[in-house]
């Protein structure tokens, strides 16, 4: 039992000094003078506002990516004790003393620093030599663009870190596969692969592609496993199951976890509430929740309600009417009914109130007990302030002539009989006798006479309609569309019989109290959907570029300029590394194709082991480059040079692999090998030289003279800022 006492307690530590040294150098290069410049640099202005909102726990909606990245940046702020009080409005604005610049920038910098030893590890795990591994790490170390991007409050460094981590973990795992499957470390690396993949996806949607790459490599390996007939069926099943859990289930759960934390953190209502559904808004503290707390749940005859369009495009708005009528004749000569206008209005207003009336009765108050309205019931909608009935008829709508005009019926036009009965359809009903519920029910109003459906057309009315949004009766409803769906947002039971009292009642704020909670999954799916469909204006930017310009580094981004001197920070890559990395990729592709064709004709130039190693390195590195680069050609958003950095890291890792391969297999004699090594050393020193030349633009700490700056403008397309005195 106590057998372990008989043995001396031994701790053996293998310390790879290479890794230590690389980590040290990585930290030095990324952390040195981190608080400089003490001013907002480039996209910090964008991420900073979200950090502030996290600090203040205010809900926001950002379509640029899942929340993990923002949360990690905010973690830095939290650790540094940031209170969120800073106005992120201008690049170059000086940080006030309450902004913990160092800790805000720390996390991306650490991620950038650790990417250096990780490149080393990856090349080792690909079973290439230490020299090659050192080469990869040293290239990462002196890549100016990576340094610049890691030293600021930006997401790319984190994304690159997790990209590399997923690949590294998978390699560690697959190398353990042969000797010790199902051992503790096997499980550790497998699960860590899943976790790292989910983090990659959690930082930017682009991470999905790295995840898919790892998945497909894993699938290919698993497929070989299935074909291995020395394993029993049960064993194969266990292997497949373990991979499915670690690489599919865990990432999915982690992804949900990010959103869970995100929603836990942000519980206050904020500037983006409007975009979300009423139900979602009601789950936030303050804002709509304060207003709608304690509303009666079931809408009954006599209820006073505001009706919000579920679609919310182009802007969220409420069904609205006002005294003005449609103009007798439109600009284009068509006629209207000259009835009272019905529109959709994007602001809260007393004219947004409607009273749900039973067509069979006259009173506009809720009886006791209230008679709830169910799916399929026929109702009339009375406009609260003008007491007119919502009506549609066979008159062309002002801006959508194929649809019917919707109006509030005024009885001065005898030729138009009132057609004001609407059948209620609850879209998200469970049964056909569902009750119409505040906030939760999404309903459609189907006109009884013409079966037209009340719809928000999305067009802005001209001046006579006060630029409010047009509401029409859609006759040709081809299936379901969200613009025909409405929900009750504010709601109370009407008490006043008289019109005058009722107007007072409508003006008074509503009270009463109940809290309604939305389940996490409902909130998650709504938030995720809105994030994916959020369309930002494709704004062009002075420094935006196209993917083709990235490979040749034909573009740069000016990140920051010192307010007085000409010290400046640019996102600018190490030209030598960029060029040789692209060259290496091309070389790899050509060599691979050549070997592949030769193998097909049964001429094997490489031993089987070398070949497999060569293929794996290529599929991960070339594949990693391709999946992180090619999708940008299909994207329509504004693109910047920094989008290329994740792809570049994969290229950089491939570079020493190709060099080693050329040295080992293509250089036949010892002499050739020596010459090749000498060339490599010379090439690396030139890369170092370029690094040190561009260093002032990377760190922005030295002010260069105009002539020096002009000398640095190696390409005409580079935009280096030169002050005119």
């Amino acid at each position, binding site marked *: 039992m106590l057998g372990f006492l008989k043995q001396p307690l031994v701790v053996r530590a293998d310390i790879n000094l290479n890794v230590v040294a690389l980590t040290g150098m990585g930290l030095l290069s990324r952390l040195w003078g981190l608080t400089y410049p003490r001013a907002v640099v480039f996209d910090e202005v964008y991420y900073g506002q979200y950090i502030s909102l996290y600090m203040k726990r205010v809900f926001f909606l950002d379509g640029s990516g899942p929340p993990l990245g923002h949360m990690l940046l905010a973690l830095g702020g939290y650790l540094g004790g940031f209170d969120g009080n800073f106005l992120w409005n201008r690049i170059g604005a000086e940080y006030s003393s309450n902004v913990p610049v160092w800790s805000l920038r720390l996390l991306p910098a650490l991620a950038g620093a650790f990417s250096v030893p990780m490149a080393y590890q990856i090349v080792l795990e690909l079973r290439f030599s230490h020299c090659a591994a050192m080469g990869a790490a040293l290239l990462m170390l002196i890549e100016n663009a990576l340094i610049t991007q890691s030293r600021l409050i930006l997401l790319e460094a984190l994304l690159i870190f997790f990209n590399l981590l997923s690949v590294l973990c998978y390699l560690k795992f697959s190398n353990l596969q042969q000797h010790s499957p199902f051992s503790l470390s096997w499980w550790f690396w497998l699960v860590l692969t899943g976790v790292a993949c989910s983090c990659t996806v959690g930082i930017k949607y682009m991470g999905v592609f790295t995840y898919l790459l790892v998945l497909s490599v894993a699938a290919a390996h698993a*497929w070989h496993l*299935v*074909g291995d*007939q020395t394993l029993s*069926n049960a064993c*194969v099943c266990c292997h497949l199951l373990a991979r499915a859990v670690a690489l599919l289930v865990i990432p999915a759960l982690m992804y949900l976890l990010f959103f869970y934390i995100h929603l836990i953190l942000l519980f206050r209502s904020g500037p983006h509430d409007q975009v979300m559904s009423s139900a979602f808004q009601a789950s936030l503290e303050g804002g709509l929740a304060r207003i709608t707390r304690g509303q009666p749940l079931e809408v009954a005859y006599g209820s006073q309600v505001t009706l919000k369009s579920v*679609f919310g*495009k*182009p802007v969220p708005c409420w069904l609205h009417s006002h005294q003005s009528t449609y103009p007798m004749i439109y600009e284009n000569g068509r006629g209207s009914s000259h009835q009272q206008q019905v529109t959709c209005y994007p602001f809260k207003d007393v004219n947004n109130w409607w009273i749900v009336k039973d067509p069979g009765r006259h009173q506009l108050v809720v009886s006791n007990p209230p008679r709830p309205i169910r799916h399929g019931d026929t109702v009339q909608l009375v406009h609260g302030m003008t007491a007119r009935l919502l009506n549609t008829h066979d008159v062309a709508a002002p801006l959508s002539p194929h649809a019917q005009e919707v109006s509030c019926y005024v009885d001065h036009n005898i030729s138009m009989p009132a057609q004001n009965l609407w059948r209620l359809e609850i879209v998200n009903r469970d049964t056909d006798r569902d009750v119409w519920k505040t906030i939760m029910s999404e309903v459609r109003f189907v006109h009884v006479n013409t*079966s037209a459906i009340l*719809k*928000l*057309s*999305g*067009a*802005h009315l*001209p001046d006579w309609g006060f630029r409010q949004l047009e509401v029409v009766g859609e006759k*040709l*409803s*081809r*299936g*379901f*569309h969200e*613009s025909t769906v409405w929900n009750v947002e504010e709601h109370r039971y009407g008490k006043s019989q008289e019109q005058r009292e009722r107007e007072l009642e409508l003006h008074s704020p509503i009270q009463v109290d109940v809290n309604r909670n939305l389940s996490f999954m409902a909130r998650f799916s709504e938030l995720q959907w809105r994030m994916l469909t959020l369309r930002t*204006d494709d*704004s*062009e*930017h*002075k420094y935006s570029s196209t993917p083709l310009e990235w490979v040749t580094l034909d573009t740069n981004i000016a990140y920051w300029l010192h307010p007085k001197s000409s010290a400046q920070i640019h996102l600018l890559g190490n030209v030598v590394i960029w060029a040789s990395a692209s060259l290496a990729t091309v070389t790899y592709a050509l060599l691979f194709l050549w070997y592949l*064709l030769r193998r*097909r*004709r*049964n001429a094997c130039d490489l031993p089987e082991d070398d070949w497999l190693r060569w293929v794996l390195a290529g599929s991960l590195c070339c594949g990693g480059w391709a999946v992180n680069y090619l999708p940008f050609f*299909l994207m*329509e958003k504004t693109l910047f040079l920094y989008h290329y950095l994740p792809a570049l890291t994969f290229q950089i890792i491939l570079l020493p692999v190709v060099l080693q391969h050329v040295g080992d297999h293509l250089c036949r004699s010892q002499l050739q090998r020596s010459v090749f090594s000498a060339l490599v050393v010379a090439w690396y020193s030139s890369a170092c030289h370029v690094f040190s030349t561009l260093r002032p633009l990377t760190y922005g700490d030295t002010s260069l003279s105009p002539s020096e700056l002009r000398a640095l403008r190696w390409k005409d397309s580079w935009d280096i800022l030169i002050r005119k005195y």
Partner: protein
Amino acid sequence: MTPAVGRGPPGSELRARRGRCGTQAARAVVADVVAKDAARSPKRPAQGSRRLEAAGGWAVLALVTLLSFATRFHRLDEPAHICWDETHFGKMGSYYINRTFFFDVHPPLGKMLIGLAGYLSGYDGTFLFQKPGDKYEHHSYMGMRGFCAFLGSWLVPFAYLTVLELSKSLPAALLTAALLTFDTGCLTLSQYILLDPILLFFIMAAVLSMVKYHSCADRPFSARWWCWLTLTGISLAGALGVKFVGLFVILQVGLNTISDLWRLFGDLSLSLVTLAKHLMARIVCLIALPLALYTATFAVHFMVLTQSGPGDGFFSSAFQARLSGNNLHNASVPEHLAYGSVITVKNLRMASGYLHSHRHLYPEGIGAHQQQVTTYLHKDYNNLWIVKKHNTNSDPLDPSFPVEFVRHGDIIRLEHKETSRNLHSHYHEAPLTRKHYQVTGYGINGTGDSNDFWRIEVVNRKFGNRIKVLRSQIRLIHQVTGCVLGSSGKVLPKWGWEQLEVTCTPYLKETLNSVWNVEDHFNPKLPNISLDVLKPSFPEILLESHMVMLRGNNGLKPKDNDFTSKPWHWPINYQGLRFSGINDTDFRVYLLGNPVVWWLNLVSIAVYLLLGSVLILAVQRGVCLPAEVQGLSQVLLQGGGQALLGWALHYFPFFLMGRILYFHHYFPAVLFSSMLTGILWDSLLRLCAWRLASCCSSSLARSIHVGGILSLLLGTAYSFYLFHPLAYGMVGPLAQNPLSPMAGLRWLESWDF
């Protein structure tokens, strides 16, 4: 023809089965029994019976073709008015007959064929094709409809032959043929003047010839092999020439060719010279030939359409000079721009238009309340501008002044001829592109302020050069703000008459949006020279028309609050397209797939994926399959895989497309999906029959197979009987009305017929 050895069940048995089946499936069973027996006996079938089989095969094919033609041509003349997109394609057919130039987002072959059919059938091109619902009256339209129906009818026999080749099984082929014959969607789409029947015809022809030439793989370079290979190439050119969707079938053929070449390359018995011959044959037949044909269709297109027409404005000035009737045709203008010239300025971005202004102001609240400046696609007096010196307002046309040319880098003022306002910009945000500055017309009778000064620059030129009309690409740079005049390409709202926005962009990057050329040029003091020099070469106009087509395609964006068809709607037959008629008194035609067929297809894809993965897994695990199952799994994986690939290639890319999508885009995929269904169910039933034969009597097993196929055939036919009014037209109450004969058939609420 020789059977492919090594794919599918053993060859001799197949040949026997294929050939001997009669027109009735019941007889096929008997034949099947005989075939089995024959296969067991070592002797090959006698010569006479083989001839009989061949005759039987031809008879079935003839029957299938006949049925297809009968259904497609039945009541082809109804309705006698324009249905749906006939308004476009009929109109374009007329343009060919009238030789009027027009613009369309699709390549020209389909419309050219329609025009040809109309021409040959005596249509004179005088019908206007204004809007759906217009009566044809005395105009002859049956030629064009008949042509489309003729091509559409070939889909069924083509699919039949393809499946026969892929699965070597008559029941599978018959099932596929029945599914397509009785699909109301394919029927409807084939009956009108549309591009789709033509496109589908070429797609199917390409697939059929590809499959055929693969089946000749054991006799490469034989006449038959060359013939099918060439036909593949021709069909590919046809498919691409009708719509760009043809690219998907090209992709399919390309993938097949690559895998075929890879297989050959691994065959060490073939010398490298033979391989090179193989490669060259494919390059010539599948790349060079289609490209040549495709280019040729464009050549014909440009040769036929020589009259100026509604499409002119989409094209560059040089392009328009080709069209007779256009004011640039054979025009002669002064060559160099001078002060005092009256000009029109065209944006170089395709389909962007002329710099334009008119007597309307920007509305209150949108920048400064000054006169609008836009770009406008049509020719108009309001496109005319006068070039003036920035600092004097004297009339440069005064004969006492010498002619002074405008040079690169000069500061000029552009005065709008009709309203005498100057082109002007200032630090107000543009109406739509908020980051740009607004461009307005300002000043009275040419007197404005310093915000009216623009520096004119020729792209890629040095200082001092004169500016050439039409050929110089110029940029106008605002003196005060330093921004560049450009068109954002966004459509202004109603107040701007839906013309395109003009802005002054502070981003100096050179894009086509901000480059202009001078098109019309009037200056009485300068000699006119002929414009013939700038006639563009054929490759140039080919390239330009493609750019314009691509931009046109990208421009077809759905509007936000509109009901649009989504790709996921299609396989479930969620929603049809109304071809004609809305109200209960109208003659209504509704494009909707036969739901029985479509849902069977949908189920088949799922079943196939399941079965396929089980089979692949079994193979990978090294499970020993019985010979019969092995044969079936070969058919399923190779033949079915081909159909599945076709379906996937013709369906999934639509998820990536930003342009507006319609239901009928799914029909190429339907063809492949029906082929998959045929192959799958036949194999499944055979598999069942094999299971049963091993435990029970073999006659029961056989009757299961026959019964299954028969019930599927009859079920499809019956569903067609139910749904045929969708295609052949309905009059009377709408289906919501319980009195309507279609009342019970509205199985989904989203169908509105």
